[in-house]
């Protein structure tokens, strides 16, 4: 029996007046990379937000052995890092320098208004280097392309050095080499014993994870290992049989048909 990093019990959430998540029970294994997949509107991002404690919800989210809501904001922020998918209502931060953006990830660790410590600087440099964004550190975010910007935001989330990372479409705008880099980062994080949860539309990347959560219509349809034929079946059926999963060069590949 593997330790559980994050657990949802009867989790329901509404956006506006519409219930988007319906009584979800989910346990995410610690020290593993879990990908969440499903068609548009399945409630993946909402689930991730609720799991990060950023959305009012019914039911309970537990981090380790305690309810997430019982943790003070800063303590939660040190243990759990969330990367949003941008989009409407989210900020642009065009006028902030890349280095300053990444340093925001250290806010939960810093005393209020204290200058960044050596540890903060080291963490930010590690994070920016791991997404190959270090060389832009003195450029404002507004001057970067979509993919470059995404790598900076990813570095911001990594700079928290939390035990648990929740990432919503971290591959948005990334070209294939940097998608591969992101996978290496996720693998390295898991190798250090951290837990990675990612909402992904790139099924081939999602299939490279340890475990997969398949969602549709605000419910979890299936949860299982990425090598499990039952998971593949659930994945094929949730996309109306419009994909088939094959093994190519040692990897699981989803092919549209």
């Amino acid at each position, binding site marked *: 029996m593997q330790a559980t990093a994050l657990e949802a019990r009867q989790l329901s959430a509404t956006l506006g007046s519409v219930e988007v998540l319906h009584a979800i029970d989910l346990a995410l294994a610690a020290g593993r990379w879990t990908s969440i997949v499903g068609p548009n509107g399945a409630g993946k991002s909402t689930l991730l937000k609720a799991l990060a404690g950023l959305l009012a919800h019914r039911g309970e989210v537990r981090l380790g052995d305690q309810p997430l809501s019982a943790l003070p*904001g800063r*303590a*939660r*922020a040190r243990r759990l890092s969330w990367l*949003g998918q941008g989009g409407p209502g989210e900020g642009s931060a065009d006028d902030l320098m890349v280095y*300053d*953006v990444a340093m*925001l990830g250290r806010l*939960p660790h810093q005393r209020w208004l204290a200058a960044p410590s050596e540890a903060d600087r080291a963490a930010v440099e590690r994070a920016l280097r791991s997404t190959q964004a270090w060389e832009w550190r*003195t450029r404002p975010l507004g001057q970067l392309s979509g993919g470059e910007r995404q790598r900076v935001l990813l570095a911001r989330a990594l700079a928290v050095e939390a035990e648990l990372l929740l990432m919503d479409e971290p591959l948005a705008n990334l070209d294939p080499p940097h998608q591969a880099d992101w996978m290496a980062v996720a693998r390295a994080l898991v190798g250090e014993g951290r837990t990675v949860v990612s909402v992904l539309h790139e099924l081939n990347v999602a299939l490279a994870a340890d475990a997969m959560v398949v969602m549709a219509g605000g419910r979890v349809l299936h949860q299982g290992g990425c090598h499990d034929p039952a998971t593949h079946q659930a994945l094929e059926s949730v996309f109306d049989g419009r994909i088939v999963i094959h093994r190519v060069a040692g990897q699981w590949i989803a092919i549209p048909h």
Partner: protein
Amino acid sequence: MSSQQRRALVLGIVLLALGAALLVLGAGIGSTGFESVLDARHDPVALQIVRDIRLPRTLGAWLAGALLGLAGAVAQGLFRNPLADPYLLGSASGASLGVAIALAMFGVSPTSTEWVVRLGLTGAAFLGAVLAVLLTLLLARGVQQTLRLLLAGVIVGVVLGAAKDLITIASADILQAIVGFMLGSTGLVGWSACAVMGALGAACLLLGWMLAPLLDGLALGEATAASLGLPLGAMRAALVVVLALATGAAVAQTGLIAFVGLASPHLVRSAVKTTHARLLVLSTAMGGLLLMAADLLARWLIAPQELPVGVLTAVLGGSYLLWLMHRRSARGGF
């Protein structure tokens, strides 16, 4: 120290140095000309003109501009909108309504220099500005939803503006006084007004600076700021307090001065990309410099007459805004 930090430091020093230079220049500009400064040593009237009229007025222009620059930077960070300005939460129309009510009730003229009257008017303007912000907060049911807050601010602005118009129509003799207030003027700022603005400005700047990390976090979006463990509700409320107090203090002493609050943060950002802690300080210095320079121009352009400084800032600021929009749309923004 990174290059941007160095630029920020240099910009700060330049802004303050220019401000000090203009303050000296401001002592020499007025309806009696530069001779007053030369005569000040042996002519008590000239000394009084320089010491009790020109200096406090020039310093007052800097302080009011500084308050507006600070409020503008806070507003743009808080609402994450580059076109946000300090009057967004209805404080401008609240202040004018307060002045209109005071004028209609007591029938006083804003050009009166009697201190009781002045105090009554500035008090009414300040009270009006703060009450309007409170009304906006009430309508928006707190500070949680930025869009609601913006809409409530617009509605409060329109309704209070209409109320002010009604009062003005009902007692037409206050029309000229109201227009004078709406145009904005630094002509009546004395040392006591400088002291009030200075004290409030220092408090607001300190509070704003302490809350600056929240503005940085908000730049990444509300959800990300919340995920960083920032107590959004409490800090946003404190920022609204800064916004209301800084704007109220400036408006009460100098009337409605347009565009200084909007333009200052933009001018700073076009020179240096930095975090909000530095942006707030620099925008404060920039606002002070802008209004002080505009005030000097207003006194000098058609001397010995003078232009209402609010008109001048509106013309200059409006042109700047048009240029900014043009540049942004040329780059594909907006």
